[in-house]
């Protein structure tokens, strides 16, 4: 990686946190430079939310240092709250207030920031300005949460699973908004368990599992790091028992093999050699394919390569 020339907006060193016997964060070191969008990608329970809530000043770490915008929670808590924007994983705003009233309340907490009208326009809720929160869709509520996060015109923005539970269209709308926020030069820290979200929005991604960072880099670097050109997935009909994974892995050009719910997944360096070899192997056993597809590796494949598990089942 290149030497950090821009000042760090966020720096986390040696962070640890346990709840009772459960270790949620087990030594995390990561930084985000000014204007960068850093993604924390991992399955549920990986420690993403604990990490981000420590950064937000909501949880106290057992050990380690967090510095935001050159300030620390210990000495500059009031100043930090003015300068960061936060969207928590599951805030429900008061059902009986309108969009405008909710934003007016949040805007009143900050010394400076955009007008309520501009906040509403920024998240495209103009038509819902006078609507009660109760009547908003999931995507609209999430956009309201984003607008609340922007109320103080923050330099550093924390988004905890901003699109979890949204339908695909609402998800795209939130992605567009986040992409726009990136262009305005803010530093964004985002947690997600959607690899597509991380690939699309983040400049760098930290893959987290069991409270540790397994890999850190740009999505391109991470994908390149696992050294596979393609992924082949297949399934078959009939009563044939499970295939031997070690036999599959030994096929020409295959780097690794996984199986989950009858779906086999091969990491492959040379597609043109491995696919014929696979066909030959299956034909030799009298197996008929029901499904076959190949794709370029994604962050999902990086996660599988690092942990042997998938990010999530869908």
């Amino acid at each position: 990686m290149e030497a950090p020339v821009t000042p760090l907006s966020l720096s986390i060193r040696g962070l640890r946190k346990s709840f009772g016997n459960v270790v949620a964060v087990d030594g995390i070191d990561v930084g985000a430079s000014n204007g960068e969008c850093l993604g924390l990608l991992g399955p549920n329970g990986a420690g993403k939310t604990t990490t981000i809530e420590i950064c937000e000043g909501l949880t106290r770490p057992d050990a380690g240092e967090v510095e935001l915008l050159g300030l620390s929670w210990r000495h500059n808590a009031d100043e930090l709250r003015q300068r960061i924007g936060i969207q928590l994983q599951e805030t429900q705003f008061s059902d009986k207030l309108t969009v405008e009233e909710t934003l007016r309340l949040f805007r009143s907490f900050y010394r400076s920031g955009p007008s309520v009208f501009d906040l509403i326009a920024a998240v495209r809720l103009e038509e819902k300005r006078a609507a009660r929160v109760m009547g908003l869709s999931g995507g609209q509520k999430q956009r309201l949460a984003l607008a609340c996060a922007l109320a103080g015109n923050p330099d550093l923005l924390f988004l905890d699973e901003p699109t979890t539970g949204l339908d695909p269209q609402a998800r795209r709308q939130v992605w567009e908004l986040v992409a726009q926020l990136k262009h305005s030069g803010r530093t964004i820290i985002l947690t997600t368990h959607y690899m597509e979200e991380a690939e699309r929005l983040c400049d760098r991604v930290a893959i987290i599992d069991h409270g540790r960072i397994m890999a850190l880099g740009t999505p391109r670097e991470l994908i390149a790091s696992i050294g596979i050109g393609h992924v082949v997935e297949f399934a078959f009909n009939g009563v044939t028992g499970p295939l031997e994974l070690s036999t599959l892995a030994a096929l020409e050009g295959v780097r690794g093999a996984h199986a989950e719910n009858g779906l086999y997944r091969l990491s492959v360096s040379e597609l043109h050699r491995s696919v014929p070899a696979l066909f030959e192997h299956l034909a030799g056993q009298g197996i008929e394919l029901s499904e076959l597809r190949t794709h370029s590796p994604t962050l999902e494949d990086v996660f599988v390569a690092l942990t042997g598990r998938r990010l999530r089942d869908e």
Partner: protein
Amino acid sequence: MSSLRSPEDAFGMNESMKATAVNGVPQSGEGIAGRSLVQLTMVRFREFWREPEAVFWVFVFPVLLTGGLGIAFRNQPAEVLKVGAVEATVSAALSREKRLSVQIMDRSTGETGLSTGRIALLVLPGEEGVVYRYDDTNPEARTARLLVDRALQRAAGAADLVQTSDDIVREPGSRYIDFVVPGLLGMNLMGSGIWGLGFAVVDARRKKLLKRLVASPMRRWEYLLSFLLSRLVLLSFEVAALVGFAVWIFHVPLRGSVGELALLCLVASLMFSALGLLIASRAQTIEAASGLMNFVMLPMWILSGVFFSAERFPESVLPFIRALPLTAVIDTLRANMLQGTPLAGMFWPLAIITAWGLLSFFVALRIFRWR
């Protein structure tokens, strides 16, 4: 599979939008001191007014209850008591007494009438004279016995030896409605203080809204103060509605200073709000909070003398009952409204109220769960 390019479709960006808030120059001038407190307090009012049930319980219910009790316990002309007689001669003698309504019936009908409460007393023929059959724990039956006995004795020729006459007192101030209105006022102050604060706080905690607010630069004391401020405004309407109704319809007297009465309501309301804050300081679900609130309020509804005097309980538990916050509040309200006692004459109940308020508030602040 995924495309790494951003789709220009469904949600195309509009240029003027980009130029506004998000990239825009921060605008100041909205942050004058105290503004967030104003906003927080406005939120309290909005949440209250937009909850029709809350408006009902705080304003309409106490007035309905006062009206209902006032009608149920209105001072009627002395009631006519129903009695039964087996013999026609007895019935004829009793029919001259206008406070009795007598019916001839056979013994078994009479006994059924007694057990179902249709008659208060049954006159049976005895070996010599008559036998009164009645339940001596029932005050109506005891009154009936006195009336029946006197009517029969007079019919048999007994004469009054002392000349008597009646001087009937039915003045405002000594009726049941006069007694119960200060009780209802105290109960209402308790309910709206504890419910009003408790539910709102626990609901915000359950929705993680409290956590979100705490992550913002909001000042925590402003959040708590906003509840008290909104309480004080609603309080004035609530007390005016209840007391106004009682004075206007039932002529309940206000013998003490009205200013002092207002002050008493204010102090009581602050104390109950602090108690509500304490109850809501840890609970994470509405169910847990309601359970706690009922646990705190139910004994006071029964023990604190809302509907009947707390002095009816055994001597040994009275010190405990007098130390309950609602008892102290109702004592001060009755003393002000019915006896016209000035504040100086209510040292102990006022000390009890203040102690409950301060203790609850400081304990609540120490153990309050902000997330």
